């Protein structure tokens, strides 16, 4: 997400370079802002502990985190959908019934659990960390719950969307205490990011 984030930050007046090389931190050109380049799932922890004042991270990460951060703006980019997907040949997308006890492979344990519980479908959640699309192909699970952007990865593996669960976009989260301590600058940042939505 760096390229899009950098573009958005520049539009909001924080001049950051296009490339970061192998560095884990990047300074804005005027030295007033420092970006920490993190794994998406780590962003909430950094923000909750105040190691970062604020963070930009997908809503999908926020669904799954225990960390308490304040979600103050929807930045609109990085749009993707959380979906239930399965092998085309299984026909679930055309109304074929799920097996009595469904196996669901996913990185999104909470969201998957909630989705199937709401529909009273008993299931077993298999927590994976990556390459979730492989799972139904090798018989590890019946379906997957995963993020889809273009849909290319699904298509390439002959998987189809069975149902859409939710939409995710990049969000701005802040540490509640830092928001107060640095109110002037953070409030302004939020305002500028909202006003400069790049379509």
């Amino acid at each position, binding site marked *: 997400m760096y390229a899009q984030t950098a573009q958005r930050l520049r539009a909001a007046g924080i001049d950051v370079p296009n490339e970061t090389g192998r560095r884990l931190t990047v300074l804005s050109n005027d030295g007033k802002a420092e970006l920490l380049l993190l794994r998406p799932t780590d962003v909430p922890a950094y923000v909750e502990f105040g190691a970062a004042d604020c963070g930009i991270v997908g809503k999908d990460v926020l669904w799954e985190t225990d960390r*308490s951060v*304040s979600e103050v703006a929807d930045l609109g980019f990085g749009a993707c959908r959380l979906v239930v997907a399965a092998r085309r040949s299984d026909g679930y997308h055309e109304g074929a019934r799920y097996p009595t006890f469904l196996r669901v492979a996913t990185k999104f344990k909470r969201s998957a659990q909630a989705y199937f519980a709401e529909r009273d479908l008993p299931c077993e959640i298999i927590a994976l960390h990556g390459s979730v699309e492989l799972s139904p192909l090798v018989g590890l699970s019946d379906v997957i719950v995963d993020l889809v952007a273009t849909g290319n990865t699904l298509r390439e593996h002959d998987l189809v969307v069975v149902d859409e669960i939710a939409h995710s976009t990049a969000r701005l989260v802040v540490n*509640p205490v830092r928001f*107060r301590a640095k109110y002037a600058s953070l*409030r302004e940042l939020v305002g500028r990011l909202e006003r400069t939505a790049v379509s």
Partner: protein
Amino acid sequence: MRLPAGVRDWLPQELAFKREIEETIRHVFRTWSYAEILTPTFESEEALERGLGEKLMQQTFRFTDPLGTLLALRTEMTTPIARVVSARLRNATLPLRLSYVATGYRYEEPQLGRMREFTQAGAELIGGPGVDAEAESLFMAIEALDAVGLSDARFDINNAAIVDGVLTAAGLDGEQLRRHKKLIADRNVVAIQDETIKQLAMMRGREDIVEFLRPLCKTPRSAAALENLEQILERARALGYRERINIDFALLRDLEYYTGFVFEGYISDLGFSLCGGGRYDALLPRFGYDVPAVGWMVGVERILLALERRRVDERPRNEVDVLVSGSDAIAAQERKNGLRVRVDVRGLDREALLVYARHKRIPRVIIANGGLVEEIDT
């Protein structure tokens, strides 16, 4: 042997510093004429549960005694104090001013600034119905943080009645009102649809926010609450605190506890607050005593963390005034004089005694040998 998660030992140096901080805070309580009170570390679950919201009830350590009575460790002191005031202090003239420095216990995920056993220092003003009591709580908290060396701490204030008033005026009630209050308290603005409420949830200021809120506080209760905040700001100005205090519309702290005025103190280095409190008029009536109350508390470990981060605790400590070798009588006399005396129990020679004394920063050494007594300044 490892300790369970969330608890720690306090070694002498660390404990000495902690005690210093506690004593500093106690001194502030005394200067405001508060009297210290203490309740048991554990009580019947039933007694404690009356004051706690759902979240705290889930975090309570419970156990049973041999007779099967369900007991619980206190998670904070405000509820036990409310209980004892209702049970034993009804004849006392109001207002009551009670302070405490006491441990609390919560079953939480241990992390920085959040242990399962922790110490809180706090003060409750019971029987003060108006803005004077609220100002007192706030100003005490400011003085306490100043006294422990955190004079750059800032304080945000708010009043739950203002938020209630604004949400009601927006047509919300019941479950929707509760939901919006929680969103506001967490500042999860994206989930708020109403533009005005969204804007307010991001607002923080002084006279500017008061003016913005004035037309939205139409009910007598919310108008009075806004008036109170204005008065507190004015009184804070008179004490030179104006620049350190802001009104934050989204400050609500524990939704189930605070019925009106609420405040929080913090510094910019940490990601969590240091102290906080407010008015909790609904608590004592639950114990059968219908009196208003305002209180606040500070987490001692959090103060220590803040000071540690700023390297304030790194002072070499001198624990001993004199090292004595070879004479019980001399040692006893020095102790009688009020000094901190260490007796050599290893039979060290003169050279070794001096090396030891310099290493331990002991300023004087007394060596008695036969009939001769030698005193050395190190």
